């Protein structure tokens, strides 16, 4: 019945995945310094937007305060490396832990509110955090931030210098790949699929036995931790962090990247970040004033023409074609 068409398109899917993986592995050796930097940044932004996709695309909650997690992840990394012990791994764990603890505490409160209140609450909390970070200059360095010296990267018995941008690239790519895999597997598990049921119909999910408040908190925490992990990658790439990472504009960008790429697809955020960050980079140099307008036009076009984002629309098109090819399927 469907098996033949399905193996065919899943084979294409695997080919795409392998192709992208090869490109990503080869890229740092092919690209120049600057595009390589942009690509590294795209991976970080994609991972950050993945965090947003978990809570928005999969759970159906619009969290407009994602920048808090990113900022906490960045500061978690910097504090650990600078004041505790100079280890990259400790920094990464600390960044995740900062974001995780914050997301559990805040999530416990905000997931009790229904949609509109939830959105407002997430904005307000991220604003408060931004103001705190800007005003506690002695701790955060405010808009000047904190600069750090990156320690060498220890992998079992080997030691790598992080002065090499290529080493940084592979480290960041590796971390993002592992995080992506964990998130992917979570949404294939019974619990992850129950989270998606909340997005679809929360009342019914409760009625068939799901503790949706609990599941929302789990999703919120996973989302925040992933975004925090992305935040920890920021000082790893730039050797600095700043209170401006808490600013709401960054939350808005996560929304934009995810919606443009395809919410709920998990790959979409990376695609959206790739498209918009490279477009921003290419266009803003000679279209400084018009760039935001262009992004606005693009967003409206996406919402009108491809409301499920680039990847979502593509996947839907493939599914439709499959259904129409299959005898007895919908035409």
């Amino acid at each position: 019945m469907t098996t033949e068409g399905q193996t065919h398109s899943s084979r294409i899917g695997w080919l795409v995945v392998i192709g992208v993986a090869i490109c990503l592995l080869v890229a740092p050796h092919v690209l120049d310094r600057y595009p390589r930097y942009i690509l590294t940044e795209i991976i970080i932004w994609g991972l950050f937007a993945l965090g947003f996709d978990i809570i928005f695309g999969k759970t159906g909650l619009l969290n407009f305060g994602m920048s808090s997690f990113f900022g906490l992840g960045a500061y978690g990394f910097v504090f650990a490396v600078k004041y505790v012990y100079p280890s990259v791994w400790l920094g990464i764990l600390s960044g995740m832990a900062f974001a995780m603890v914050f997301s559990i505490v805040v999530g416990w409160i905000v997931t009790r509110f229904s949609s509109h209140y939830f959105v407002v609450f997430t904005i307000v909390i991220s604003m408060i955090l931004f103001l705190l970070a800007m005003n506690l200059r002695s701790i955060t360095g405010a808009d000047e931030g904190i600069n750090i010296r990156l320690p060498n990267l220890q992998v079992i018995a080997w030691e790598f210098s992080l002065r090499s941008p290529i080493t940084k690239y592979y480290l960041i790519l590796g971390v993002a790949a592992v995080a992506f895999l964990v998130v992917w597997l979570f949404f294939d598990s019974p619990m992850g699929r129950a989270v998606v049921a909340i997005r679809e119909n929360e009342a019914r999910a409760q009625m068939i036995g799901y503790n949706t408040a609990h599941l929302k908190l789990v999703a919120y925490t996973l989302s925040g931790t992933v975004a925090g992990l992305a935040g920890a990658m920021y000082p790893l790439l730039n050797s600095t962090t700043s209170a401006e990472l808490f600013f709401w504009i960054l939350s808005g960008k996560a929304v934009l990247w995810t919606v443009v790429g395809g919410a709920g697809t998990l790959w979409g955020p990376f695609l959206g970040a790739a498209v918009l960050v490279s477009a921003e980079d290419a266009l803003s140099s000679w279209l400084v004033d018009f760039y935001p307008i262009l992004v606005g036009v693009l967003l409206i076009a996406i919402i009108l023409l491809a409301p499920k984002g680039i990847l979502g629309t593509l996947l839907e098109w493939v599914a439709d074609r499959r259904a129409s090819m299959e005898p007895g399927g919908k035409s």
Partner: protein
Amino acid sequence: MNNDVVLRTEQLSITFGGLKALNGVDFEIRQGEVLAIIGPNGAGKTTFFNVLSGNLRPSNGRVIFKGEDITALAPHEICRRGLSRTYQKTSIFQDLTVFENVRLGAQIGHGQHNSWLRGALSDKAVVAVVEELLVMGGLDHQAKQPAGTLSHGDQRLLEILIGISTRPELLLLDEPSAGLSAKETREITRWVKELSQTTIRNVIIVEHDMDVITELASAIYVLNYGEVLCQGPVGEVKCNPQVQEIYLGKSV
């Protein structure tokens, strides 16, 4: 107390503003019974279901399910104790596949809802149950479609399949025939009857269609203005002149 009683309510009351939607309802269903609840629009039938399933907290009275007071429990806790319901207005997971709709309930029935270290499809027992249910409902050929693309009749069937996928001991059916054609109504009635004789033996059904009730239920509760007007075997209640006047009209 009688062990035979599956669910019992004592003096159940709920007030919305000044309106008494339920007023001192005493209700009881025993093992193996299929009971119907009828009454005019606004009589409190769906409200009664909402209280039983935990969607609404009563202002007064208690709900006892299998000897346990479940009045203050949340819907998911009540469901996990074995009470499941369907909705009058179809409430399914529109964008998920038909298979996934039923699987979500089935994994609750198998206590799998909190596991996250394995693939959802790796539990063969859950998959087998889902496939069995889909065959039973005749939806096995549409298993991979998004539930929202099903016809209204099939969505009504799916609604019930989701309801029984959690393996309940007591099923509340809220107007299973709502919006169905005469033919579809006959089919779904036959299907529910078979269900009540095999898998789910305790059913409370809210329904407008007297033919459906006569076919399925052994006894009726008549609700009117939130109160139990009368109760008894179907034949008896149908002949009650008071019931005929308020609800059935003179034609029956």
